[in-house]
């Protein structure tokens, strides 16, 4: 059996990559992709712990499926927003969108 540390390290690497993407990228599409990456890192964590702690139970895995579902819905919403943004501003660069500032 693969030790749990491997999963955790993988999850941490994926999460950090996602976080870097969210902070460093300027394109809205890429930010959404990075958020997805972070969500999947969390999912991996859930599955790893579920299998590791309660191998004969199902409830940890449910969370992973739940996260995937939510992420899909969220991406739908986020892409719609980005689409409207692009229509209005002709850009998807988040640096240029600051209409909510003071």
């Amino acid at each position: 059996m693969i030790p749990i540390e491997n999963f955790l390290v993988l999850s941490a690497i994926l999460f950090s990559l996602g976080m870097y993407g969210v902070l460093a990228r300027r394109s809205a599409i890429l930010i959404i992709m990075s958020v997805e990456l972070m969500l999947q890192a969390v999912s991996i964590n859930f599955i790893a712990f579920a299998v590791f702690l309660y191998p004969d139970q199902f409830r940890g895995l449910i969370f992973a499926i739940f996260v995937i579902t939510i992420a899909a819905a969220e991406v739908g919403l986020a892409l719609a927003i980005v689409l409207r943004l692009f229509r209005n501003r002709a850009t998807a660069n988040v640096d240029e969108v600051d209409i909510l500032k003071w």
Partner: protein
Amino acid sequence: MGEVWLIPAIPAAAFVALLLFGKYLPRRGDWLAIGAIAASFVIFFPVLIDLLDNLDQPDFTGGGRAWEWVSLDAFNIQLGFHVDQLTIVMLAVVSFVALMVQVYSVAYMRGDPRYGWYFAMMSFFAAAMLTLVLADNLLLLYVAWEGVGFGSYILIGFWHERRSAAEAAKKAFITTRIGDVGLLIGIILLWREAGTFDISEIFEFAEGGGYSAEYLTLAVLLLFAGAVGKSAQFPLHVWLPDAMEGPTPVSALIHAATMVVAGIYLVARMLPLFELADPVALSVVTAIGLTTVMMSVTMGLTATDIKRVIAYSTLNSLGLMMVALGSGSVTAAMLYLFAHAFFKALLFLSAGSIIHATERQDLTELGGLSSKMPVTSVVFGIGALSMAGIFPLAGFWAKDEILNVSGDNQNWVVYVFMMLSVFITALYMTRLFVRTFTGRPRNHHAQEHAHDAEPMMTVPLLLLAALTLVGGFVAFGSVGEALGFPGGFGEFVFLEEAEAFHFPWDVAILSTLIAIGGIAAGVYFWSGEAAPARRAAQSLRPVYRTLANNYYLDDAYQWVINHVVLAGGAVIGWFDRNVVNDTAVDGSAGLGVFAGFGMKFLETGKLPNYALAISLGVIVISIVFLVVSV
């Protein structure tokens, strides 16, 4: 007769009606005000007869009903009216003089731009004054007490376009307020121990020994402070001479016959408490009264404004009443009050006629009016002789009663000063009469068209003069019995036991001789060109200046106001402006503005900034959590 409450209620209703609809009524509603006070005067008679029928019943209250005003578990306040002999005397005086003055005012105030407002306020004042004398509990009395104070304030400042009138109104209100604070504290002190505001219940409680002697003394002295303010006793007398800025009928009603005697009434009403308290309380009353008498008679010698002289004579009379009360005699004080109301209203209203006719009120511009205004000069003379205490006018009987009382008390200091005051009173009343009505006119221009006033003004004068002539005889037992009373004044109004009228010839003859001496001296000093008076003023220059400047009391008070009150106020004002306002209120508001304005720049609107803030926040919280939990 359960309709006592109508007596103050009718003028009160008239006030409300005049206030709301006065503009639309014919003649601006003066007939409504006069009709209301006349109705009160008429209702007074059944109340009087009812009282006379029930004199032998000790717990008769005149059938005044009581209203529940405040009703909490342990705190009930009943408002009600109470009729006894003291109340009856006051009701008679107030309603009759108010009626006379309002009739007189119709002619005196004609053409005034605020004619309707004048009558509305007269009704308000009458309602408050009648409530004051009828109240059966101290709380209602206090409310009415402040009501008459407010009415007085408005009416003194009736011609408030004139700065001196506005200042006088302010001075009167604030000066009496100083005493009123004492009155309120006194009432609260009495209530705190007894748990009731009802006057008769407080008496029962005090007679049962409910108050300790020191406590009661303090309480009655505080009550007396209220009386000192309202009745213009030393050292709060300074407002009354200035209050002459009001219309003359107002001076006659408020500052001679009714409001200023409210203090006398209060002390007379509460006299059982004064007697139960330490004897020092009554001594204070006597001392204050006597001081007022001596100061006012001397100031009356130098004042040149005709109304101010009469105002000083009012102070004189009020002081005499206080001396009577300090000697423990309600009878003497109330008899004087009764007589004084008529002859002092008469003096003021005749002075009003003079002012109306000549538009002058300074003695240096009057003189020789007796040929032009014969009726006025006769009634004024009657009033002045009554004030001086000449037989057989009302003032004679009343003043002798007070002299008797102070003589009976064997207090010779008081007695000697009283006799001295009789002399000076006669002196300055003679001066007033001589300088106004005899000699040659000093200002011909002003007197060209002077003549006796129209009947609307002279009829009240004649009625008051008639009462001044005969009013004093109520002191006689046979006169009282003929009118249906149990006897003379002393057997009707008394504190503990009825006293039959007694007339010690020695006192009467002595006081009459002194008064006649005063009149003779007055004629010598002031008749013609008043050369002896001028010489006296020259040779006694410092005395004259002191008197003419009212013993410098006004200057002393002004100094205190400037250097203590206003200086203290400046410190408090500085604290208020700089600490309370600028630092606390504006400061906290400014902090909010600054914080909001400064912080808003954190809202950049840029997604990466928010993301970074969230990430850093999570990292910081995680580190903190790790550190704390380990």
